[in-house]
Structure formats: C-alpha cells, structure tokens
C-alpha cells in the first residue's frame, strides 16, 4: 500500500504534478493495517497533515471494511475502488455505494491478477491501473513508467501487465 502511494506520486510527477506520498504505519509488523496517502496539486504541497477527507479511496484489503472506519471523511462525490471479487451487497455496502455517481465506484480482482501476472498476491499495482482508468488523473503510461522505475526487469513486466489488465477492465466496464 505504501508502495502504491509512492508509485502514484511518481506517476503524477511524470505528468507535471506536484505530488506528495506518505505512509501512516499502524505498527512495525507484517500484516498490520497500514494507511498511505497521496496528494496531487498544481502547486507546491506544504500541508503535512494526514489526508482526512480524501477525493478517492483505494481499499487494498476488503477484510478491513468492517473493522476500521474506512469511509470516514470520504465525500460521496469522490471515488471508491475496492480490491475484491465480491459484490457490494456481499460486502455489506449495497446501500452505501448508491450514494456515489456510477463511474466513481469500482471493484477489481487485483489480487488475482497480481497472482496471474506477477506470481505473488501483491495487488497494489493493478489497483493503480484501475485507479488511473477510473479517475483519469494519471495515464496508464505514467503508472507503468512509475512501476518500472520501482520494479525493474521481469517484476516490472508482470506488474505492468497487471496494471494494464485492471485499466482495461474499468475502461470496458
């Protein structure tokens, strides 16, 4: 998740944005809930407070949905992207997602695509592909360039393919 915010900031930087990405670690162990933030702007970003009213929220681990107050601060004019194969109703979000404009909410099977293209259950890059398609704030090309910068070589190829797959799944939806 932290890498996703970092790569999103790099993608935005490549398109001329000022971008700031930073994590908030719950605790220093694998598996602990982690929140990471990314801000994009056309001018210098000086603000250092956490993002408390996001324009877009990406949920990498849907098992957190009912453990933590994830949607606190998310405006229903914003964007919501969830990594899952399940339906909104299944997730208990049937009524909640009706508040959003139709193209502002999406689910993607990012973990499965990561397993398929990268061989490991790391869904963050696929989620960035989907995010680019949904919000159109950054292009897929910039996302892929940021991913290849972080993961050179074969790992980058796989992740780039996963991002493209997720991007297409949103665009054709």
């Amino acid at each position, binding site marked *: 998740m*932290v890498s996703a*915010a*970092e790569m999103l*900031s*790099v993608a935005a*930087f*490549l398109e001329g944005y*000022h*971008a*700031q*990405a*930073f*994590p*908030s*670690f*719950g605790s*220093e162990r694998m598996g602990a*809930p*982690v*929140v990471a933030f990314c801000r994009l702007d056309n001018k210098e*970003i*000086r*603000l*250092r*407070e*956490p993002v*408390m009213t996001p324009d877009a929220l990406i949920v990498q681990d849907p098992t*957190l949905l009912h*453990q*933590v*107050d*994830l949607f*606190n601060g998310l405006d229903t004019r914003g964007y919501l992207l969830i990594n899952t194969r399940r339906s909104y109703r299944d997730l208990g979000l049937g009524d909640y997602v009706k508040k959003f404009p139709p193209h502002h909410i999406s689910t993607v099977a990012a973990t499965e695509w990561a397993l398929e293209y990268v061989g490991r259950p790391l869904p963050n890059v696929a989620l960035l592909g989907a995010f680019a398609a949904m919000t159109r704030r950054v292009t897929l090309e910039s996302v892929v360039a940021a991913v290849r910068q972080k993961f050179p070589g074969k790992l980058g190829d796989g992740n780039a393919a996963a991002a493209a797959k997720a991007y297409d799944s949103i665009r054709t939806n």
Partner: protein
Amino acid sequence: MLEQIEGSQAVAKAIALCRPEVICAYPITPQTHIVEGCAEMIRTGAIQNCEFINVESEFAALSVAIGSSAAGARTYTATASQGLLFMAEAVYNVAGLGLPIVMTIGNRAIGAPINIWNDHSDSMALRDAGWIQLHAETNQEAADLHIQAFKLAERLSAPVMVCMDGFILTHAYERIEIPDQAQVDAFLPPYQPRQILDPADPYTIGAMVGPEAFMEVRYLAHDKLLQALSVIPEIQQEFKDIFGRESGGLFHGYRMEDAETVVVTMGSVAGTVKDLVDELREDGAKVGVITLCSYRPFPLDGLRRALQGAAKVIVLEKSLALGFGGVLAADVRTALHGRDTHIHTVIAGLGGRPITRKSLARMFARVERGDLKDPHFLDLDLDIVRREIDNQRSQITAGPIAENILREIGPCGPKAV
C-alpha cells in the same frame, strides 16, 4: 536533477555527493532508509573511497565515527530516538573534541512508552551537548542542509546534527532537486582537518582537563557555537550563489510584513502552518510564521529583531520538558525578555499525533479571544487524562498508566492516526 523521491533517499544521495570517507551507523526507525541508501551506494560504487562500517550499537557507531574523524576522514552517521540516547556519552565527546561529524536525526519520540513516530524529544534531549542543530522544513531543505552541514562543521571544527521529522519527512515522497556533483564540489572543498591523529606525527587529543582549565575549554566550545550564528548565514548565501535556492540559515520568515500574531516553530509542521496562515490572511488576520532552522546555536538577537512588531507570539513545538513546559518556548521567552509580548506555548504532535489545520485554527481563535491557557496541549483528550488521574489517586494498585489509557481508548485502527 528534479526527482520524485523519498526524503531518506534524497538525503542518502546528498551525503553521497559530499564525498564521505567513513559512514558508520546502526539502523533504527525512522532513520534506516537513509543508511541503507548510503550502504547500497557504497556497494554499487556510486560512493567511491568510502568505507561503510557495520557496528553493533549506536554507541559503537558514534565511537567509530570519533576515531575516523580524528584520523582525518569526512565522517557521517545517522540515528533517532533511543539510538541517540544510547550514544549520548559519545555525543558530548564529539563536541568536546571538536570533531566535524555530520549526523542525521530522523526525529522520533522517546520511550517509555515505546513509540516510533515523530516528535522532537530526541534531539532536544541532546540540545546542550555542543552540536550545531539544524532543523529541515522540507525534504529539499533536508537534502540541502546536509551539504551545508559538512561545510559548516569543517569550517568551525564542530559537529552538526541535521534534524528531519521522522516519517513525515523521512518517508515522504516529493519532488526534490538533487544537485549534481560539480555543483557540490564547487561548494564543498575537500576536508582539511584542524587536528589529526597520525602515528607518524603523534599528539594527544582528549586529555584530562582539571579545574584550572576546564572553564576556558568549555567557554571556547560555547564561543564556537556562537560563531556559527554568523557562519550559518554566510554558508546559506554561498549555497544560494551556487545552487540558486534559499535553504538553511538561522530562520525563515513567512508573511511577516505587518504580522501582529506570529507562530514560531521548527520542522515540517511549518508547511501546515503556512497553509493555515494564508487562509487566515484572507480573512484579514495579520499573522505570520517564523521557522527556526538553527536551534543550536539559538539566534536570540535575530529572533528578537524579527519579532519586534509582534504583539502575540505562539510557540508551536513538538517537545515537552516534563515538570516544566515548552522547551522551545523557554528559548523564545529568553529572546523576548523584557518585552510585553504575549507568548503562548503550544505543545503539539507528541508521539506522532497529527497536527491539523483544523486544530490549529481552533487554537488561533482562542489566542485571538485571549482565552488560551498556557501551556496549551493541542488535541489533548482532557477527559481521559482526568479519569486516569482520579484512578491513580483513588487506588494504590491502579496499574500502569500507558496500558490503562490504551484500554480506555479501545482497539485503535490505522485511521486513528
């Protein structure tokens, strides 16, 4: 070259450009990425003629640094929090010996209770050890200050800590101009040690000094830091001449023209304060900000002049002297001694508690109304505090305070940042 890069990596690259000869460090969050970055560059050959020495503790890290610096090598290390405390004895020795070591502090709280997040307790604990302490407001400034730090340290033969907020800066990705080698070489000459341990020409460094001379030696260490008050702005100007950027100096003012209420602060929170000040200015409030870059030496006279027009001063700090109050606030009060300026102490952000515009705006409003108690603890949950005070008073076996508070608050998710 302009890069979108993590603060720690930018600092590692800045260190590399300074052509260090010895780097010895022990990893501790949130400093780890910096020394990992340095080690990696030595491994790949991106840093030439430099040895990375693995050590078993922070005490060893700075002790090895003392040896290498005394032997004439440009020496760098980095630490944070308990790591800085663990090397405390060596911290004083470096300053006492006048060795120009540069050390990054990834500012982090001190336990117990254990806490990995940012505040300024660590560098504050060693503020009077004889090191120059510079605080970075942004990652650009963090990178730039390291380049300036070697020049400053070597010109005065005094050690420099470059303090940057843990996580908030060390782990933040933002755009940073990474200088090129030719610029840094033009700015920073090769290290010429003022004293050098050489078996071919032996002499003593670190002799015992008795009552007959200790006062004089100590006074000279104090005088050296006071000299830094003029050297720091000189180096700031020399840096600007070559790199074209304003970085470093004793302090920066923001919207200080006609400011009647001024926030004095240090480190990355200044950015948040500036955003709020812009908002307040739009509503007609005459507010400004002073961000201290040099905490030691403390620019008493400069600050006194800069705050001449201020009727109210709010000292916003991430440190708390237990049993006393604000640490930075006490320094600012000394600078303003004899004036009738209203000085408010605001303690904020301890242990990584976010400092938000919303909370700062509420605090500002109370300052303007004149009903802010001093010192003020931003976003302190007084109900919980009072209940625990009652609990501790009412039963002798009340148990550990930290764990009682955690139970009161309940399971705390990542949103409770």
